[in-house]
């Protein structure tokens, strides 16, 4: 099974839910940290680093001898990543989306160079495998890196994707193709506003999902009312417990520091399985 833990708003508890579900899983579990701009699951899962590989994209490299400065490549590029000057063609790697458009060159003057996008690290801790993508600072192509992380989805057992916040390309890349999405939110107007955006996105992608309310006893009942009206299942509610905040701050999972919460996460898992 492949589930994703997502949220429009940042800081609602995606990492907490993903890591604690991984901890209580009975089967071997692969946790895929797709929040590649700011990956944090490794703090909570730990374990041994068993593999680390760079992920690169191809960017164009212009052969000055063959290039006639005709400008076809820069006219084609939609991202302003290639500029043709009278005597030189300049490639701006950081603007390049690696679309493959260099094939338009009529003089075969363009080859490609690998450009590091980030890295994928694999950690193992008992039955848990953590696949973490981390974007190199200054890069903008997080969806490509997320797609590389998702190549590590295991055919056996449970796969949990920890998605990036937001409702645009990186979030879509992370949740596409999963069996079920858990939307984590908080009961505040901020949480509700961003939840509505996420729901619209998941409905557009025809994905199955339910909502988990974190810090459920703060704020107001707007999220509950919205879910009620839309018929969205509320899978679990985690109270605003200072012990959870402390455990999180130290990089500890809730189920290990405060064992009484293990049942809550087990129930959440069985409701996910029941709904998926």
């Amino acid at each position, binding site marked *: 099974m492949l589930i994703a833990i997502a949220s429009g708003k940042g800081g609602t508890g995606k990492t907490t839910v993903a890591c604690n579900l991984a901890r209580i899983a009975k089967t071997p579990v692969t946790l895929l940290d797709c929040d590649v701009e700011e990956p944090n699951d490794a*703090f909570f899962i730990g374990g041994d680093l068993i593999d680390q590989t760079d992920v690169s994209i191809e960017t164009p490299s212009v052969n000055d001898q063959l290039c006639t400065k005709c400008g076809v490549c820069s006219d084609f590029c939609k991202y302003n990543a290639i500029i043709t000057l009278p005597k030189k063609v300049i490639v701006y790697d950081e603007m390049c*989306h690696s679309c493959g458009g260099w094939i338009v060159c009529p003089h075969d003057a363009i080859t490609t160079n690998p450009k590091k996008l980030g890295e994928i690290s694999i950690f193992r801790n008992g039955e848990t495998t953590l696949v973490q993508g981390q974007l190199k600072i200054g890069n903008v192509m997080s969806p490509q890196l997320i797609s590389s992380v998702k190549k590590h989805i295991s055919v056996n057992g449970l796969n949990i994707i920890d998605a990036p916040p937001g409702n645009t390309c990186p979030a879509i890349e992370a949740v596409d193709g999963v069996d079920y999405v858990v939307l984590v939110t908080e009961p505040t107007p901020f949480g509700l506003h961003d939840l509505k955006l996420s729901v619209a996105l998941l409905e557009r992608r025809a994905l199955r999902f339910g909502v988990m309310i974190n810090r459920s006893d703060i704020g107001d009942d707007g999220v509950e009312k919205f879910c009620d009206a839309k018929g969205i299942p509320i899978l679990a509610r985690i109270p605003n417990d200072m012990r959870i905040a402390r455990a999180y*701050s130290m990089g500890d999972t809730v189920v290990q520091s405060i064992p009484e919460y293990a049942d809550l996460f087990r129930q959440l898992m069985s409701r996910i399985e029941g709904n998926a």
Partner: protein
Amino acid sequence: MKELVIISGKGGSGKTTVSASFASLAKNSVISDCDVDAPNMHILMKPEKTLTHDFHSGLLAEIDQDKCTSCGLCYEYCRFDAIDKSTDKSGKTIYRIDELKCEGCSLCDYVCQANAIKLSTPKRGVWMESDTKYGPMIHALLDAGGENSGKLVSLVKSKARVKARDDNADVLLVDGPPGVGCPVIASISGADLLLVVTEPTQSGKHDMERVIHLADSFKMRVAVCINKWDINPEVSAEIDRVAKENGAMSVGRIRYDRSVPRILSEGKIIVEQDGEVSSDIKQVWRDVSRTLKS
């Protein structure tokens, strides 16, 4: 006019809470929400008299099914996995563009022999010019799954800058997005000071370091403020140390208070009421505005 961008790396650390408070404390500011993916400033700022503009950007491909010969070249060449392949009842292979994955590179159009690709510049969202009781506000909302959030952020910022100059504002306050990617890079560009609002957790510390490194690559000044610092005083001390090592200055701490979410739920801005958290934020603003002027 000075430009202050409030970011965090990690989401949910309190950017909007702090930004809205600053907007209320600043005497003469223009406010801008650059978290166009999941904007929240308007919930607290309650903008009025909104002028709404459509945001069109980038290209989107579409396949004309009458012209398509099902040769599959577009499917083969697309590097964004944006072409869906299926089979219709008669057994013919059908190719369709996945609108949310298309990056608008137009390579499909280039390789198509049947001239079946149509390219358009679609509406991706809206941007708005509003008034609030604390000054003008420029904000935006990307459509669910909308592409080009970086471009919308750049547009919001440029409009906000024009407004701030026209109004002779002292400060342009920008509530930024989480992360270190494309929208963050667009939102920090050209700022006089970045304020990183972080929280005393391992994640908060790690994410702060990454945004500081990003800021370094643009040679920008960075200040750090720890929200809910007393949840873990030891990690707060570590954060101050790491911030200092990375050349960022500390501009105060905000304590944890259970009443904050309730006040926000009432749609109120923290510094509009008296209290310890309110005084903490006022102190941070004094330090930040002094730094901005220096």
